[in-house]
């Protein structure tokens, strides 16, 4: 009883702390929002598509914008804990390492989901979107895709903390590993928007990806945190 309840208690406490910090400073959310707004505007200048064409390309544009914006937030997750040696204090405390990881992943998941909820209407306006397939499938695609980005992103952000140029390191590690997930999100979104083919396969792919990498991250995070 004690391990699972303390895992949960530490997760909730850390998550609450992170959300409170973010609510007061709004650092990550503001920079992500402005960044993805810039991406939307630049994309709309550079492509200027018709409604029919935009349906085919917007799946890619949306996810590329969210991926870049998520990197902005992910880079700040652990940097916050480095100030005043919080991370070192965490390492010597008896709290389970996975609780810290889960709290960070959940926090990032919430921030990126908020970003997506705010940015999606903008994409609809800029690209005159009209969904032809079953629109409800966009919700599981978005949730699973965000989880895929965030779980690996949080893990690799913790990894790149130990490197010389950590802000640069995160995308270099994250993007190659995220290729199958990104493919699933982009192709699934395009399938729903155009209504040409069913998106079920992509949802299954994303579920598999999420399960595999969540397990791997939870199994290896303690090693990464304590690696000395």
């Amino acid at each position: 009883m004690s391990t699972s309840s303390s895992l949960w208690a530490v997760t909730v406490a850390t998550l609450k702390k992170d959300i409170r910090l973010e609510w007061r400073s709004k650092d990550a959310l503001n920079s992500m929002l402005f960044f993805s707004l810039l991406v939307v505007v630049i994309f709309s200048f550079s492509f200027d598509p018709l409604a029919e064409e935009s349906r085919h390309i917007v799946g890619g544009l949306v996810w590329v914008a969210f991926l870049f914006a998520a990197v902005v937030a992910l880079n700040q997750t652990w940097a916050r804990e480095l100030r005043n040696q919080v991370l070192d204090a965490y390492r010597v405390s008896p709290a389970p390492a996975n609780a810290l990881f889960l709290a960070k992943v959940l926090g990032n998941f919430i921030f990126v989901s908020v970003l997506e909820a705010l940015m999606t209407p903008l994409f609809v306006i800029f690209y005159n979107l009209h969904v032809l397939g079953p629109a409800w499938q966009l919700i599981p695609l978005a949730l699973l895709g965000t989880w895929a980005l965030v779980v690996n992103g949080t893990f690799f952000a913790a990894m790149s903390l130990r490197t010389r140029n950590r802000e640069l390191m995160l995308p270099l590690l994250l993007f190659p590993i995220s290729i199958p997930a990104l493919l699933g999100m982009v192709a699934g979104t395009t399938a729903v928007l155009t209504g040409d083919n069913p998106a079920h396969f992509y949802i299954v792919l994303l579920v598999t990806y999420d399960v595999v990498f969540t397990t791997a991250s939870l199994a290896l995070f303690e090693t990464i945190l304590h690696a000395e």
Partner: protein
Amino acid sequence: MKRAFPVLSILSAAFLVYALYQALAVAPTDAMQGEVYRIIYYHVPSAWTAFLLFSINFVASVQYLASATPSRQSTARWIVIGVGVVGIIVTFLPQVQAQLKSAGMRPSAMATTVLLIPIFYFLIGKWFPGQRLDVLAVTSAEVGVVFCTVVLVTGPLWARPVWGIWWAPGDIRLTSTLVLWLIYVSYLVLRRFSSSAQTQMLAAALAVFGALDVPLVYFSIWFFRTQHPQPVIGGGGSMDPRMLHTLLISWMAWLCFAFLVCWSRFRLELLHREVEELHALESLAGGESAKASLPLQRSAR
């Protein structure tokens, strides 16, 4: 080492020349593709060598991660034994046998391959104890990236005259090889940019993530392709025995070459670490020599 290395280098150079002669002069010309196909004798052996080196890297990384704690070591050991046992049982199930036969594979060959996984795992653990596992991982990743680059360069050169295009974006083998290359380049970048002590654990974890990623890439593109047919390498089909013979000779020659390069890189990395260790010991011991060798740190203090 000092005496064997030049002898082996000369032998493998001669072997490579012989393989080149076989590939250019002895092997018959392809009925469909003409002389262009002869690039296969470089393309395919490089691909096999690269995959072999990447799997060595994966096994060494898993061993390195497992060696951190005894409990994890025994868990990993049981998982590997379990993989071997389950794999052998599965290959003898009638449904799987029928599947394998229809794909042109012999069940006994499949069972032997599966049995090799635990053997490979334990042999690597036995021959490369402790830090040597990590050195083996770096070495195999570096040489593997070189061979994978050869594959990615010769592939388009071959595809252009045969398929009419340089690159088929939806093709399963092209894309998964490219992603594999990207993952291992990011692995090498991590090793380059990471600060000394923790690098090895981080890199081993990244190698495990990369290995988990590869089947997912393959799976996702496999579905992608069945939806959007693309020109692909003719699946199945049989090969002229003389061609297969030349291909295997060529692979052997490249394997010898890869082994030599890995060996010298392995020695170099070991020496490099020994030197670093000595420097660290020297500065710990203090005294005059440390003052002389570390002027920067002292002035910073």
